[in-house]
């Protein structure tokens, strides 16, 4: 799955751009030749598209789609997918069941388009039997989803692609790098990059932090919600009930060593609802919450 | 007697399925001070050499350091 990439010069290096996972993606490099920048851009974009093709729920030609068609049968999975499943399992355990990659089916009744179309209790309850990571069976190299269940790796995919792309980019150069896939980013180098944090408001303008090595990821979206009878329904759904998490911030940004980690901490924080900030404080990470 | 000890160990190993921790709980065990053979690695190598040349025993912790004419 290929697409277009564009490379332009910057004051101290290069900026490569492409689109992947429905987001504008960027690679910035310092002090490299044009050919190295082209190689790195090609590798990074290639990896982003590869991860999208393999794990997107919007395609019908990958393992995720095959699982949906498997109808309760055992399906063979490769090593990368197994590692993602192991990771999903870890996150499910760490969150006490709040992070659940089988909760994607709720999308069928919850559409967060700013309208007031909230599903009925019956509609939501009808989907609950199709949710539950503990219903998924795993054997080495294989997985079995009960019929009707599906897997949604959207909560891990983009950040995973960022980290993977960095590892691959490092095979070509030791230069300062910044990879940014639609707001989920990782920096690696000696001189800091200026990173805009949308949840860090300073005089109405998004604030900036210097980052030389590390990742920043944001979870949540202040533009996706439902509003009915004065009550706001956030798009963070609790898979145990099928209903939105109450009382939490609209979005959370976290800084951590790797993008996957940062993104997951942000997601786990949102799933805590009102307990988001105490949770983030207890983890000892830098974070920014948006409450209105 | 030695065969019994070996058998006992093998049985213990197979019964150890429920012992242990999840991968994400290994932060304490990952410290160098908690890894046998690495924690006091160089000390152990020196000590093994000292006591090999001052006593009648050796072995148990692993090998690969090389012989010497001291015993």
């Amino acid at each position, binding site marked *: 799955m290929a697409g277009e990439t564009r490379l332009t010069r910057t004051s101290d290096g290069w900026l490569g751009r492409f689109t992947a996972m429905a987001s504008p993606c960027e690679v910035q490099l310092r002090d490299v030749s044009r050919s190295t920048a082209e190689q790195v851009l090609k590798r990074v974009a290639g990896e982003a598209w590869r991860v999208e093709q393999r794990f997107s729920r919007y395609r019908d030609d990958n393992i995720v789609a095959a699982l949906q068609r498997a109808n309760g049968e055992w399906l063979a999975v490769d090593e990368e997918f197994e*590692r993602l499943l192991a*990771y999903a399992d*870890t996150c499910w355990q760490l969150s006490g069941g709040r992070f659940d990659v089988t909760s994607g089916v709720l999308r069928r009744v919850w559409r967060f388009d700013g309208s007031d179309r909230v599903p009925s209790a019956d509609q939501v309850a009808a989907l609950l039997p199709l949710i539950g990571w503990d219903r998924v069976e795993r054997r080495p190299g294989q997985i079995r989803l009960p019929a009707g269940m599906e897997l949604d790796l959207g909560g891990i995919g983009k950040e995973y692609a960022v980290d993977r792309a960095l*590892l691959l980019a490092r095979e070509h150069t030791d230069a300062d790098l910044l990879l940014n896939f639609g707001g989920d980013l990782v920096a690696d180098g000696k001189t800091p990059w200026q990173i805009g944090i949308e949840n860090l408001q300073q005089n109405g303008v998004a604030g900036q932090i210097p980052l030389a090595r590390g990742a920043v990821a944001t979870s949540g979206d202040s533009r996706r919600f439902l509003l009915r009878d004065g009550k706001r329904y956030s798009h963070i759904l609790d898979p145990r009930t099928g209903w939105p998490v109450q009382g939490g911030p609209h979005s959370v940004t976290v800084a*951590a*060593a*790797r993008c*996957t*980690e940062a993104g*997951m*901490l942000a997601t*786990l924080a949102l799933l805590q609802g009102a307990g988001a900030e105490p*949770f983030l404080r*207890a*983890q*000892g*990470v*830098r974070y920014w919450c948006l409450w209105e | 007697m*030695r065969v019994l000890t*070996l058998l006992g*160990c093998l049985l213990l190993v197979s019964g*150890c399925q429920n*012992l*242990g*921790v*999840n*991968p*994400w*709980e*290994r932060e*304490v*065990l*990952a*410290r160098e*001070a*908690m890894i*046998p*053979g690495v*924690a*006091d690695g160089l*000390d152990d190598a*020196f*000590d093994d*050499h*000292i006591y090999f040349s*001052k*006593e*009648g*025993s*050796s*072995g*148990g*912790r692993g*090998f*690969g*350091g*090389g*012989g010497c*004419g001291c*015993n």
Partner: protein
Amino acid sequence: MQLKKRYQPGPVSTSLALATCALLGVPAMAEEADKWQVDGSMLLYSETDRVSAIEPVIKASRTFKNESKLDLKLTVDSLTGSSHNGAAVTNGPQTFTSPSGNKVYQINAGDVPLDDSFLDTRVALSGQYSWLLNRTLRATSGINFSNEYDFFSVGANAGLNWDLNQRNTTLSFLLGLESDTIEPVGGVPEALSLQPDQLRTDSSESRTVTDVLLGWTQVMNRRWIMQLNYNLSLASGYMTDPYKVVTLTDGAGTALESESLGGVDIGIGDAQIFEQRPDSRTRHALYWENRYSRENDDVIAIGYRFMTDDWGINSHTLDMKYRWQLDRGWFLQPHVRYYIQSEADFWYESMTAPEYTTVLASNDYASGDYRLGKLTDLTVGLKVGRELPSGRKWDARLEFMQQSGDTDAADVSAVIGQVGYRFYW
């Protein structure tokens, strides 16, 4: 709400960081992956009135991107001083020849016989390489050389480590082969012959040692790890110490005269016979180690080893360390080691003439080396060190060892000092 040190990771973020590394297939300590870890260290060893040694060591390790690992180590070992030559403490003077046979020296009545011309420098080199065969199986192999003026050793090893139960259990199988060549200064003495006769063959001897190690490492819980090893060691070839003798006495504490037994006369009390050890030795050792980390990061380490062999020696070793973790990377580690060994079947403090005739007639084994006799060792020490932010660290330890046994020869006190520094390059 309690104040926490900034960016002290919490339980979830720590676990998540480890899980992320597992997902991406990178080692948890990615920063060190591209560098050599160099450990430089020096041992100073000094026995009261006996041997002193100085031993600098330099070790370099590197983990590669595919998680294979290379360790290289260089050791230089320089000894001076005198050591016990196997003879008994008698109530009269004794006369010996030097190891080369060129000189003669005398020991006063009641003194522990020490051979004064003990000078040796050893150089040893070793390399060990380990690599992953698959996600749960790691292979290792290595070679080592050691060279002194009268001794040369070459060895190789290979092994497998198998992770089970989500890496909570590791089973190890290691095999080692070593070949030693001994070229005693002055030539190989004829075993059990009288030292004054200087019966030598102008040759060298050799021996091989085969070691098998079966290991089981088990994570017991978040804070406790245990290891159990069984080591079988089979040695065959020349095991005798060519410089050591057994004293022939009258049974009442006076050394005999070599000429009364038909030998050459070199002085008073010169009836010393060269020792002879069996030409094979089978050793079994069982080693059990436990490491436990307390909530405050202190670590308790307790190791016990039981050894038995077909020379009649049984030994028990108990080794205990408590690592006291202090602020800002400092630590203190007191250490106690207790060792007890029984005597070899063929150990003699001294031998009478009739005993000698019997032993000689059946070409039996005899040694007066105090290290094969009953022995009790106690070592007490303290180590201090500091771990610095970039992974560097230094440490220093000071220990006192006291040895004692059935004879005065076994009364040895030693001071052990060691300093070390680790850096990345």
